[in-house]
C-alpha cells in the first residue's frame, strides 16, 4: 500500500487558485520532495494533506485514511514540522514535548522514553529544561523536528525544514533527515532549495503555480534533459541564439542576460561546431561551458524560469491569508 494517494487536489481562496489539480502518490518508506518556488502551492498542499485546510476539490488518502472523512485518524498517524515556528517559547523543551505527547494520547511511561529518544536524536538533551525562548533558530527547528517525531508517526511532513537557517545548521538538519530515512519512516518534504531536494529526496515533484510539472527521481529527471547543457556567453546573445536554432542544435535556447544555454546530447562534440559557426557569422564568444544537467536545469526546463527569479512577496502563507481576506 502506498503511504499516500493524492488525486486532483484543488484549493481556491476567493478566486485565487493556490493548488490546481495536484495528483501523486508516495510510497511507504520513501523520501518524497515537493520542489517549487515560494507561492507555488507547496504549503497549501501540505495543509490539505494534514487536514488543516479543507480542499476545494479532489481527495487524498494518508496512511489509508481519507483526509476529509477521517481527519482525526489522519492527524493521529502523521507528524508535522511546519515552515513557521510553532513551539511554545514560554515552555521548556521538555514540556513542549510532554504536552505534545499528551495531546497525541501517549501514556506517561511512553512519553518519558520517547522524550529522551527524540531529544538525543536532535542533540538537545542537555537543554531540555531550558525555556525555548532562550533557544537559537536552529535549536528551535531541531526541537520542532523532535516534536514531530515524538509520537512515532508513520509519515512525517517537513515543510521547508531548513528555511532561513545558516548552511551549517542546514547540513545538520539534513543529517537528521538522513537518519530518519534509514529508520524507514515515510517523509514528505517541501523545499525551494534545489540542492536540498537533490541531496535528500528519492523522488521529487516539481510544482509551480499550483500544478505538478514533472515527477520522478532526481537522477532520472536530470538524465531526461539529454546529457549535457551548453552555456555560451556572448555580447550578442540574440544573434547567437538564432544561430544555434539555425544549426538545429535545439529548438528554444534560453537567454539569461549575456548567456545562451541549451540542452544537447553530446555537448563536448558540439562545442567546436558552435564556435566555428559563431566565428563564421562574426559573433564574438566570451566563454563557453559544458556541464551535466543539474536539478536547476530540470526546473528551468519544466517551468521556463529560474527558481530564484520568482518574486517572493512574503511566504505563500501570508499570500494565502491575504487572499483569504484577513
Amino acid at each position, binding site marked *: 500500500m502506498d503511504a499516500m494517494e493524492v488525486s486532483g487536489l484543488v484549493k481556491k481562496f476567493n478566486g485565487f487558485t493556490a493548488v490546481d489539480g495536484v495528483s501523486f502518490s508516495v510510497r511507504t518508506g520513501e523520501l518524497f520532495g515537493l520542489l517549487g518556488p515560494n507561492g507555488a502551492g507547496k504549503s497549501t498542499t501540505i495543509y490539505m494533506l494534514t487536514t488543516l485546510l479543507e480542499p476545494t476539490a479532489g481527495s487524498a488518502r494518508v496512511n489509508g485514511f481519507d483526509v476529509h472523512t477521517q481527519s482525526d485518524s489522519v*492527524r493521529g498517524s502523521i507528524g508535522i514540522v511546519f515552515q513557521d515556528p510553532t*513551539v511554545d517559547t514560554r*515552555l521548556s523543551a521538555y514540556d513542549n514535548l510532554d*504536552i505534545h505527547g499528551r495531546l*497525541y494520547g501517549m501514556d506517561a511511561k511512553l512519553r518519558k522514553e520517547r522524550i529522551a529518544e527524540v531529544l538525543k536524536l536532535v542533540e538537545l538533551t542537555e537543554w531540555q529544561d531550558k525555556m525555548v525562548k532562550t533557544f537559537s533558530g536552529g535549536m528551535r527547528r531541531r526541537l520542532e523536528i523532535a516534536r514531530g517525531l515524538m509520537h512515532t508517526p508513520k509519515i512525517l511532513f517537513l515543510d521547508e525544514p531548513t528555511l532561513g537557517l545558516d548552511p551549517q545548521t542546514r547540513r545538520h538538519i539534513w543529517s537528521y533527515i538522513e537518519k530518519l530515512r534509514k529508520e524507514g519512516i515515510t517523509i514528505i518534504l517541501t523545499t525551494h532549495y534545489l540542492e536540498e531536494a537533490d541531496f535528500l529526496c528519492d523522488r521529487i515533484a516539481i510544482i509551480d503555480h499550483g500544478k505538478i510539472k514533472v515527477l520522478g527521481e532526481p537522477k532520472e529527471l536530470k538524465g531526461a534533459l539529454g546529457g549535457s547543457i551548453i552555456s555560451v556567453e556572448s555580447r550578442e546573445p540574440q544573434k547567437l541564439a538564432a544561430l544555434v536554432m539555425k544549426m538545429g542544435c535545439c529548438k528554444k535556447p534560453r537567454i539569461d542576460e549575456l548567456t545562451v544555454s541549451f540542452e544537447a546530447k553530446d555537448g563536448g562534440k558540439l562545442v567546436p561546431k558552435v564556435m566555428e559557426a559563431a566565428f563564421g557569422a562574426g559573433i564574438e564568444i566570451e566563454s563557453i561551458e559544458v556541464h551535466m544537467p543539474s536539478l536547476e536545469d530540470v526546473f528551468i526546463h519544466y517551468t521556463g524560469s529560474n527558481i530564484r527569479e520568482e518574486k517572493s512577496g512574503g511566504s505563500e502563507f501570508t499570500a494565502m491569508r491575504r487572499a483569504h481576506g484577513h
Partner: protein
Amino acid sequence: MAIEPSKVYAVWLREVKRYTNSKSRIVSSLGMPLLFLAALGGGFSALVPGFNYQGFILPGILAMTILFTSIFSGVSIIWDREFGFLKEMLAAPASRQTLVLGRTLGGATTAIIQGLIILVLGTILTGTQIPSVAHMLGILALMVVLSCFLVAVGICVASLIQEAETFQLIMNLIIMPLFFFSNALFPIDKMPSWLQALSSVNPISYAVDGLRQLMIGTGTFSLWLDVGVSVGGLVVALVAASYLFSKTSI
C-alpha cells in the same frame, strides 16, 4: 470526536505551566487591582464618611482581576496564531471542543489564582470578614463560573478577530466597558439612569452582586438571579466559543 479528559488536561497543563513560568507577570498583573482598591477605595472612603467604600468595591476589584486575566487568557489565542502554536493544537488528534474546554479551564485556573491572591490581600486591607466557610465556598464557586465565562468570551473574540494588532482595541472596547459599565465601583441604585441601564444588562454586574452579597451581605438583585445569569452566561459563551473556534483556521 468527543471530549477527551486526558487531552483537556494537556491543554490545561500548558496554560498553567505558561502562567507559573512567568512570575514577573503574575506580580505585575496584581498591581492595578491593588492600586484601585487602595487609592480609589481609600480616597472615596474618606470622602463618604460612614460608608466602607473599600469593602464595597472589594468584590468589584475581585471581578476586575478575574475579568482582565480571563479575557486576556482567552484572547491570547490570537498570539498563538501569530506565533504558530495554534497550528500545533489544531494539528493534534483532539476535537475542537476538547481544545476549547482545556483552554477555558486553564485560563480560568490562572484567573482564580490571581483572584484568590487579591481576595486574601483585599480582605486584609479592607478589614472584610467573610461570614462563614459556606460563604467562602459560594464565593469560590462564583469565581469559577465567572472566570470560565470570561475565558470563553475571550475565545469567541479571538476566533472572530484574527489580527494581533486589534489586541489593544479589545482592551478598550470590551474589557474597559465591561468593567466601568457595571456595579463594580458604584451601587447600581445610586447611578444615573443611563449607567443603570447599561449596568443592568452587563453580566459582570450580576457576578459582582453575588460576590458582594456573599462577602459583605449587601446587594441589589436576588442571589439566585445572580447565579442564574452567571451560569447562563457561561453556558452560552462556551457553546459560542466551541462553535466559533471550530470555524477558525490556521
